Each structure stands twice: as C-alpha cells, then as structure tokens.
C-alpha cells in the first residue's frame, strides 16, 4: 500500500466519522426538541368547510392567531381554544379542549357557532295560530311569542289549547282593552292566561298558575321591547 493510498483511507475515515457524528448530533437535537413537544402538547386536526378558509385560534388571555388555510394539523398546549374559520363571508367556530398526548379533531361547518343567545324561535309553539282567527295580527302573535319567551327563555314547547280560547266582555263604547282567555302548557306545566290589547301592534300577557290561580307573569310587549 502506497503512502498516498493510506492518506486517502485516513481522509475517507475522517470524513465518514465527521458525517456520522453530524448525523447523530442532528438526530439527537431533533429527538430532544421533538419529544418534549410531543409529550406536553396535544394534536388538533382542524378541517373546515372551504379549502380557502382562514383558520384562527385564540384563548382567554392570548392573541388570536392565524394557523392555517383550509385545514391544519396543530400541536397545542393543554387548554380550551376557540377555533374559527372564515371564507367568503361565511364563518364557523367551535371550542376544542386539548389534553397532552391526545389527538382531537375539529370539523368546522359554515354557520356553526360555539354559543348563541336563545330566541323565541327556539321554542316550539303549538296552537298560537288560533289567535289570528280571533282578531290578533301577525305582529301581535309574534309579540305574544316573545312574551312567552320572556316568561321562560329555556322552554322547549309552549302549547295553547285552541278549544279553550274565549273572548272576554268588551263594551264597544269604551276604551277598555280587548281580552282573550285561554289555557295551555309550558313544557307540560299547565297555565291559565289572559291576553289584553288596545291596538293592532301590542299585547299584554298575564299567566296564572292553573291550580292555585296565582299570577306568575304579567308583561306587555312594549315593556319586553325595552326591558329585556
């Protein structure tokens, strides 16, 4: 073996060793930085309703941050996050609670909201149409529904017994209000009620306990519009 060959071998050995050491260092660095992240965070896979939607996340005491477009795979510290997506004026949002070393998926639909205020539209009204044939206007029936809603905002079903509706006495020569009396139920809890009105817009609803006769609610749509 010539000295030149020996020198080449030594050089080759040194280069190989340097490359191996470099490889070990890089692998070690990746291992040391990746494993703690993997152990302290949770994986969140976000899919949205549009490929071009911007995905934003936030928390109670943090800035809102754009984290991706269309879909995203995120490593997040444990906690609850508000995730939202927006595309062409459409939005969708959801809450996601992240646990360490756990994967979660969030599929954001257009129009999805985390939290919404209930409205009278959330209540199933049965039998209220009968008031239209008893002299109330559509606006008054709408106000009546809002008054029932004001009485019990989390009611699921409010029923008016159509056969129970009777008109109260009214002197056509006087300015006394018109009245309608009826019975029904709010989520299966029976009530007696009186509607009074003097014009074609407003109504006043008074509810009574069907057993004791005690008044349990009394409000006009004018009050409801300004007080609630």
């Amino acid at each position, binding site marked *: 073996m010539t000295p030149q060959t020996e020198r080449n071998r030594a050089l080759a050995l040194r280069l190989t060793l340097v490359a191996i050491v470099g*490889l070990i260092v*890089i692998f070690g660095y990746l291992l040391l930085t990746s494993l703690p992240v*993997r152990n302290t965070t949770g994986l969140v896979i976000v899919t949205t309703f549009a490929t071009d939607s911007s995905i934003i996340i936030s928390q109670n005491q*943090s*800035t809102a*941050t754009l984290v991706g477009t269309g879909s*995203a795979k995120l490593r997040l510290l444990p906690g609850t996050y508000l995730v939202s997506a*927006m595309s062409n004026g459409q939005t969708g949002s959801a809450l996601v609670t992240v646990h360490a070393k756990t994967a979660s998926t969030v599929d954001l639909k257009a129009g999805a909201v985390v939290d919404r*205020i209930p409205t*009278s539209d959330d209540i199933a009204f049965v039998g209220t149409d009968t008031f239209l044939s008893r002299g109330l206007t559509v606006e008054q029936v709408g106000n009546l529904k809002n008054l029932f809603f004001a009485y019990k905002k989390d009611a699921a079903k409010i029923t008016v017994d159509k056969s129970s509706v009777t008109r109260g006495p009214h002197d056509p020569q006087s300015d006394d209000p018109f009245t309608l009396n009826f019975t029904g139920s709010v989520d299966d809890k029976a009530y007696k009620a009186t509607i009074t009105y003097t014009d074609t817009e407003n109504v006043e609803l008074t509810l009574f306990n069907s057993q004791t006769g005690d008044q349990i609610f009394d409000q006009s749509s004018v009050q409801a519009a300004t007080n609630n």
Partner: protein
Amino acid sequence: MNTENHQFLRKLVVRLGLITVLLLAVLLISPIMLGGGKEVKLKSAALLTGQVAQALDRVHGGNLQTPGKDFQLQDVTYFQDKQWVYVHIKPTDTHAQDSFAVLHKKNGIYTVVVGPGTEFDSNTTNGLPDEVGLFLVHKGMVYDTTN
C-alpha cells in the same frame, strides 16, 4: 495506484451518499416524531382581546386585528359572576367607528355572542339575562324590531 485511489473514492462517495440518505430520513422522521402537527404557541394578551379580535375578523373580512395596535377594549363590564361581559371596542384608527360586543363564558372560555356592532335589535338582546339586556338598553344600543 490509480485503481486503488479510484476504489477508495468510490467507497467514500458510497459512504457519504448513505449518510446523506440517513440524514434525509432523519429529517423526514422529525415531523412524524411530532405526529405531523405544527407546534403553535399563542402569545399572551389581555383577557378577551383574542376572542374580540377573532370576532372582528368576521366584520373586517379576514383582516385579523391586533390588540393594542388596532384596537383597545374599554368600559369592560362584567355581569353574573363574570359569566357575561360587555366591552367597548375602541379602534386606534380615529376614522374607524367604535363598536360594542357582549361575550359569554362557556366551558371556561369567553366567546362573542352579540356584536361586534354599534346597535343591536331587541330580538337579539331578548335572550340575554335581564341585567345585561337592561344595561344595553340604558346605553341606548337596542332598537326595537317587534313594533
């Protein structure tokens, strides 16, 4: 001698090629080690500003607002054991209009349930707790759509 040199050179190239392949493999494994996810750390900010910025994003059409730089929260008023909050959103741009919002705490996190806007219809605010609804009425922010 030339043949020996040639052989060593070939061996060296093969070794370095192998090591390069291993390096690429390590770099490819790295995202797998993270489960494929991108690590995201949110910067700390004043309470509610993140959610308000997120809600403003809907209004401003994808232009994410920065708390402190683009807007500030004023007149923050809590109701019902801090379950409900009213905020006045003051833009730093003096030409931009002030807006208002109501947030509700759900599962430990606040989200905007009314606004951001300059006034709200009574159908929207009827579902708020009376205390919050009255506050908005007294602020002159509720207009009636029922009559």
